[in-house]
């Protein structure tokens, strides 16, 4: 169903380093020169001990944070030299985020939350965009809850809204930081299945951080971080 070439490069890291508190006595390097490449077809788990730098890496890839050295290519474009406005635009159009805590905006309804990335980019949503958002909500099993406020949904439902929101722009890359960490196992499996489906359907690369070995075992690829280095990167099955 994807109109994209499954082997198209979505993201590439080249000697990527990230330090915190640069220039201060507490300066610490968290990522020590990473090289990594993701293609559209990839469905990868990012695993590693707590403090190994998984969230840091995800934030850098998602253009939320800047690396200290090295280069990050998104859709073959180098991002280091981009200004803030261009990074924001690229972030909005090419990347979808799902966080551990659902991070919905309470003042808006479920449907409006899903539409938010589109509204931020182009203003008042079109009929077509609203239909797309409704379709996504139906796909994550929330048909009929479009007008609910987030606090009227269960944790699992909220996380599914967040997944729908991350996908509404048809991003090239979906980044998820412990998306199921907060959910019971049934909801966790549902959300995980959603990622799988969207990876196939939209040809959207998925990089998901998880501590759950049952989950990482079901991914096609497992990238293991140990103390800021890629210890292993293996394809499964």
């Amino acid at each position, binding site marked *: 169903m994807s109109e994209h070439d499954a082997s198209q490069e979505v993201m590439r890291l080249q000697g990527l380093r990230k330090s915190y508190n640069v220039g201060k006595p507490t300066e610490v390097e968290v990522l020590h020169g990473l090289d990594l490449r993701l293609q559209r077809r990839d469905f990868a788990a990012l695993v590693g001990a707590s403090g190994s730098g998984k969230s840091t890496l995800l934030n850098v890839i998602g253009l*939320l944070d800047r690396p200290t050295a090295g280069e990050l290519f998104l859709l073959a474009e180098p991002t280091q030299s981009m200004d803030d406005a261009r990074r*924001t635009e690229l972030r909005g159009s090419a990347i979808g985020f799902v966080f551990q805590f659902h991070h919905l905006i*309470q003042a808006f309804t479920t449907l409006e939350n899903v539409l938010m990335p589109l509204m931020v980019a182009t*203003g*008042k949503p079109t009929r077509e965009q609203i239909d797309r958002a409704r379709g996504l909500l139906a796909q994550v099993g929330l048909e009929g809850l479009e007008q609910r406020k987030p606090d009227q949904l269960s944790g699992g439902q909220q996380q599914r809204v967040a997944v729908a929101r991350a996908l509404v722009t048809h991003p090239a890359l979906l980044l998820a930081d412990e998306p199921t960490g907060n959910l019971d196992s049934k909801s966790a499996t549902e959300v995980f299945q959603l990622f799988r489906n969207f990876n196939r359907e939209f040809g959207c690369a998925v990089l998901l951080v998880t501590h759950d070995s049952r989950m990482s075992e079901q991914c096609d690829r497992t990238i293991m971080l140990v103390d800021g280095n890629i210890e292993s990167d293996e394809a499964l099955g």
Partner: protein
Amino acid sequence: MWIEWTIATKFLHEGKVQSTLILVGIAVGVAVIVFLTALITGLQSNIINRTLGTQAHIKVQPTEERNRILPPATGIVQLVLEDKRAQRLRSINNWQQVRDVLDTLPRVTAVSPVISGPAFARRSEALQSVVLVGIDAPRYQRIIPIQNDIVAGVFRIGAGDAVIGKQLAADLGLRVGDKLRLDGGQQRESVVNVAGIFELGVRELDARYVYLEMKQAQSLLNLPGAATIIDVTVDDIFDAQAVAARITRLTGLKAESWMETNAQLMNALRSQSLSTQMISAFVALSVALGIASVLSVSVIQRTREIGILRAMGTTRQQMLRVFLIQGALFGLAGSLLGGLAGYGLVGAFNTFGPKLFYIPVNPWLLVAATGLAMVTGILSAAVPARRAASLDPVEAIRHV
């Protein structure tokens, strides 16, 4: 702008309690400013109207007579002990021509030549010093509508008729139809008939003014064909000063505006305006600080949501505008509420107040207050909005 507007209004709606409290705060501040401004404006225009009800806006008079002192020859030091000259009653040269020139001046609405000078009024043994005012009635009435202040008889001068003040009538025991002897000095006397009695409410005028036809006053004062003053009114009383200066330039005569004549009053009014403006400025300042602090708290409360919005591609400028719009909306809604409350107070004052004077309701005051409050709202939102825009998305998302 649509999405910024939507987010801003949803945020305001979500924080209902906060929004309501600050709105009430702004409304109270604006109501105070509107009411105070309306009250002081009403009070001052009332005072000015009362003052100008019995005065021309500009008085044109001959220039003062000065001693002419020959300049000393070079090399000679001249010590001069100079007494100012006594100012005798003099006519304005060519006053008919001056009158016609003034008639054509822009901004001037009425011109009235007057001959006025001292005399005695006598009835049997009683003697009062009075001011004879010889007027051209139709012209004079456009300056001071004296016919409205007649308490007895009619306003009619000429053919031996005179109109006198109520106090003078009381002092001399005169009623309408009685005779009054006027003495201009040097055996110039005439007897006039009291045709009407006026009450202007200014004691000095009610006790001294005797209105006559110009001709009769001229002969009593021994200034045949003369006019000593030309009264002028202008369309905007606060332009009187400028018009007076223009008249002086044009005619070489001394032209004094009501502001100069009533310098002390003007000074008092100015001080009053200044203190009102200071109060307004401080109220506005505290309103601005209120808006700024509410929005600052809101930015902190919404740190995580700002982070999410940024992660979804919201730009810094959009984030900035979201909070500027909130500031503007606070200003707009607060000032509308406050403006209405202010007008309510004005209405209450007019209906239930001491009724010493009436406060006119000026709709432009509301427009001005609303505009100013919106600008204030945007300015006060600037600091918190910049904070929101500069938040680092990573930090913001991690925020709990």
